[in-house]
């Protein structure tokens, strides 16, 4: 397939990989921080879905995409707050609560969408976020097209990832985050408020997932469709592991996943002679295999998933 190794094929492929990876970057970068504090955000899927709807509703009623994105982030944050109440304050099993929240979100968005928009023949839609070409950078051959001709949220995803990486590596907050996930008792003894820190991490993760959800509805299609996250939240969890809890690696892993997804669409269109089911399953197979290959000997935060109880001995 010499068609594949041409700039005309590869450049748009990688550009699409960036585009499709961006919502995953939001989800997984947030989750990286949250998992570093010791809480796994299994509810990403549900948070994204609720945010996708609410951001669309806000953008639709206000006419402002910015308002939509902000509401999306806020919706994710509030969802996370609710889950955190169960998972951190009430010390319930985080994965059980997360799974239940995902189930809840599917029904809730259906309910809310219908209650708000009813069933209409015309389509409730908004303009999607415009593509912004970064001056100068977007003119670089190949690179410009791949990285610098996207909507604002794609850039924000990258900036967000770098910012989280910087904060985790160079600030006291970053040290505290890792300490809370490694040894919460030691962190507490050092004066860190572990519960508050875990809330912060989790809600940040919810906020990011919310922006990721807004990306789906406002960045891609300008409307909400039922269950539009289609499992992306779970992929984000896999990416978090692949990234070894490093936000920059999370960007790379998300990009990898997006590219495989983009690739399968292109291979199909080019008439590759395989059943389509194989292509549809391909990104998941790749993720599974990379988990096995790159996921070996990784060191997860020691206290990940454990309930922190201040007064326990």
């Amino acid at each position: 397939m010499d068609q594949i190794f041409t700039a005309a094929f590869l450049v748009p492929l990688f550009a699409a990989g960036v585009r499709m990876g961006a919502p995953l970057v939001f989800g997984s970068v947030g989750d990286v921080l949250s998992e570093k504090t010791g809480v796994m955000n299994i509810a990403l899927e549900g948070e994204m879905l609720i945010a996708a709807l609410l951001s669309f509703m806000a953008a639709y009623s206000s006419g402002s995409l910015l308002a939509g994105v902000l509401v999306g982030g806020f919706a994710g944050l509030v969802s996370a707050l609710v889950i955190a109440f169960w998972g951190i304050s009430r010390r319930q099993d985080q994965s059980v609560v997360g799974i239940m929240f995902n189930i809840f979100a599917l029904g809730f968005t259906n309910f809310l969408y219908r209650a708000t928009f009813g069933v209409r023949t015309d389509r409730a839609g908004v303009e999607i976020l415009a593509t912004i070409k970064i001056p100068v950078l977007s003119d670089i051959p190949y690179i410009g097209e791949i990285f610098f001709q996207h909507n604002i949220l794609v850039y924000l995803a990258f900036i967000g990832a770098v910012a989280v990486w910087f904060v985790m590596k160079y600030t006291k907050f970053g040290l505290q985050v890792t300490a809370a996930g490694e040894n919460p008792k030691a962190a507490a003894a050092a004066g860190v408020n572990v519960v508050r820190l875990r809330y912060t991490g989790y809600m940040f993760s919810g906020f990011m997932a919310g922006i990721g959800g807004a990306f789906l509805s406002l960045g891609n299609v300008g409307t909400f469709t039922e269950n539009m996250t289609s499992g992306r939240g779970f992929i984000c969890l896999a990416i978090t592991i692949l990234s070894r809890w490093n936000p920059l690696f999370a960007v790379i892993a998300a990009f990898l996943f997006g590219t495989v997804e983009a690739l399968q669409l292109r291979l199909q269109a080019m008439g590759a002679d395989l059943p389509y089911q194989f292509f549809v399953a391909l990104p998941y197979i790749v993720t599974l295999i990379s988990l096995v290959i790159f996921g070996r000997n990784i060191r997860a935060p020691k206290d990940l998933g454990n309930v922190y109880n201040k007064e326990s001995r």
Partner: protein
Amino acid sequence: MKQTPLLELKGITKTFGDFTANDSINLKVYRGEVHAVLGENGAGKSTLMNIIYGIYKPDRGDILLSGQSVKIQSPRDALRHGIGMVHQHFMLVGMYSAIENVCLMGEDSALSLTNKKKTEEKLNELKKRYGIEVDLHSPVEQLSIGMQQKVEILKLLYTGADVLIFDEPTAVLPPQECDALFDVIKNLVRQDKGVIFISHKLEEVLYISNYITVLTKGRITGQIHTEEADKETIVRMMVGEDVLPPDFAARRAVGTPGPVVLEGEGLYARDDRHVYTLQGVDIQIHAGEIVGVAGVEGNGQVELAEVLAGVRKARKGGRVKIDGQEVSTKNARAFIDNNIAYVPADRNYVGSVPDFPLYENWILRNNHPPMKGPFLDYGEIRREAENAMKSYDVRARGVEERSANLSGGNLQKFILARALEKHPKALICEYPTRGLDIKATWFVRDRILRAREAGMGVLMISGDFEELFSLADRILVLYGGKIVGEVRPETTTVRKVGMMMMGVNGHESD
């Protein structure tokens, strides 16, 4: 010297449900003074310290700092008020260096950039002032226990703590490091800090402190200036009566030991972090002898015990033989079938399943529990457990009791009963009396001696010199994963063994 106390507790009471852990505790700590709090495990010392440190909230009572009443809601508050605590289990993040661990602390805003240079300078200054020598750059999990303790102390000094609480600081240290610790503490009080020193060891309390408070079952049963105190008074304060410890050393075996029952050749093993902590050990345990193993924690003694008990793989071709027959260390069940009994250090999560009732814990580490056809015969299991609990004086509401609800002493007796009930060939025990009260300790030691008298080979890992010297027939000293010396307790001294544990004077056995 009677100025305002630096720290004063007034009527501190803390209950957990119906259980009173601290009952109206009054206590004063002055600058330049070491105030020892003495008591057995479960006497409420840790609860009290956790209250001072803001981890628990007291039900009643006041905490006064330099005469001012303060509310301490969290460790953060405590640090802000100048109270620091060196925990028994160090509160350090293992993957961080000393500098990073220190950076975690402090008042500056969370989003401020970490300034490692500045922190390092200040730490170096503190090191000089208090005479503490420690590596600031390696991840603390790679440092020795004594070093980690020093990092803890530095961390507190860095935040400007005036009151330093030491929670059983010597429990994990070899004797030489204890001396170094005492030097540090003396330096601290010389610089006008106040120190609370928690311990259950009489000698060191008498050595280091200026004032002693004795806690028993949550109440203060005695307060005395150290210069007025002697051992007998304090023991009386603790147990309320005169009790003499039995003389275990008198029961030392005489004559030649029996044949080798358990043997290890060229044993190498990795710990849970995949680090080789056991680096080639040959060991033979004869029937009818107690082999003591001494060493600073983390020098391979736990891994040695685990390999010999069959729960950790021997690597690099190391072999274990039981009665001369080689048994694969990959197969824990073979060890169980060959009747190698094991009493692990962690009673609550290794030696038992905390949520299981006692009768279910009775058949842990048992390949052939009583069966009725294909099913477990719980009737028989209960009977066995009940009988053993009677003969080992395990006090619990019954076999239905969850093992998590047992006190340390009772649980240890239960585990020992289970290990010895089948008359094993060899008994391997790790820190058998750690954290037990005096009477339970005596009971366990007596049973270990009886096991030897019944012809078992016993391997006993201990951090307690009194225990090693009074029970063991010979003591192996481990350092860096190797045996650096073998001594007979009658012919050596604690100090010599301590030197060997530090890697000094290896092989200089009497």
